[in-house]
């Protein structure tokens, strides 16, 4: 993935970088990254919301740190440096989660730790943060995090509602609604994501991305 190299002014560039994460460079839909956790944590809205928050904080912190260090990171050791930078906030957030919401922490299990290998973070760092000043890197990271976060919360809402008839534990339908367990199952996750992707593409007018996927 290449960053545009046009010499735009600082604010315009940051805004463009932010917007790209929600549209033309959407991390999940366009770049097809970070699908693993997207599907695993979307059985209930509260899991998805916690995951989105963890992802946002981690992306912002690691983008900021890498961007500040970008001139000092030796290219040969950059990947391991990124991993160290990413794992620090993840470890802290996991501890915090275990202390404040032990039930959610137990349900999410290893998926919190797997944020470290989430390709979205690595992708944004390698494509943007390591090349750009902190303001642009932060905007870019926030865009990607919001793009990811809104998607997984929406997916979780659909799966929780259809699969259990409830949202955040509140029943939305009358007693007569038979919960469709399919949507709580893995197969349902794949299908809901596929349909959401179709919706996204429909809204954007079938513009095929430059890379990622393709038969």
């Amino acid at each position, binding site marked *: 993935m290449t960053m545009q190299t046009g010499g735009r002014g600082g604010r315009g560039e940051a805004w463009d970088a932010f917007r790209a994460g929600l549209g033309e460079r959407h991390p999940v839909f366009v770049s097809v990254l970070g699908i693993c956790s997207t599907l695993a944590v979307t059985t209930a809205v509260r899991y998805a919301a916690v995951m989105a928050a963890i992802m946002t904080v981690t992306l912002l912190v690691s983008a900021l740190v890498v961007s500040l260090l970008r001139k000092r990171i030796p290219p040969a050791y950059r990947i391991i440096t990124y991993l160290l930078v990413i794992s620090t906030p993840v470890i802290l957030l996991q501890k915090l989660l275990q202390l404040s919401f032990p039930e959610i922490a137990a349900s999410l299990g290893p998926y919190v730790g797997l944020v470290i290998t989430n390709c979205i973070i690595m992708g944004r760092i390698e494509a943007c943060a390591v090349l750009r000043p902190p303001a642009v890197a932060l905007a870019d990271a926030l865009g990607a995090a919001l793009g990811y976060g809104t998607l997984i919360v929406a997916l979780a809402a659909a799966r929780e509602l259809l699969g259990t008839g409830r949202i955040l534990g509140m029943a939305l339908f009358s007693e007569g609604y038979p919960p469709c367990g399919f949507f709580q199952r893995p197969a*349902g996750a794949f299908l809901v994501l596929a349909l959401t992707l179709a919706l996204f593409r429909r809204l954007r007018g*079938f513009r095929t991305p430059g890379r*990622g996927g393709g038969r």
Partner: protein
Amino acid sequence: MSGVLPGLFLAAIFTDNIALTMFLGLCPFLSLSRNLPVAAAMGFSVTLVMTVTAVMDWILMRHFLMPYRLEYLQFLVFILVIAAVTQVLEAIIDRYSPRIYGAFGVFLPLVAVNCAILGVSLFAVFRDYGLVETFVYALGSGIGWTLAILIMSGLRRHLVFCRPPEALGPVGTVMTLASLMALAFGCLSGLVAR
């Protein structure tokens, strides 16, 4: 204990399939399932690295991190182990089997960033598996991942003859196939005695 192992192995392959149920290692699952030889090569590399790292990670976790209450360092240590194991395996395969290296060598570094590898190690710790169980679980998971990507690449060949809804796009189509495969794999739960 030994009676549980076959069940664990089959569960890891089918009902707990690392790609279709745990959603791990999906990036290469989607991007490398376009052709069969590449999918097979990637599957082999994943199985190999997964088994070796899960066992090593288990030993390090139980004998070095847990005694000192440093469990929170597991992510860091596991990632380092994965990186080291891929390097070592690459060197060994390169030296002793040029043909295998020619076919798989390119994929080993890719495996290092595959979240399925880290995921299996983390799950083994999370579920308190013993050493033998970890080995069986990791081997089964690797085989399960390979099976899933092989079936997917077989299915994708036939997509040439179909016209899936345009809005789905290539990724959406594969995702729908994965959904159907997940259903099919889930139905094998009768194999595994709970």
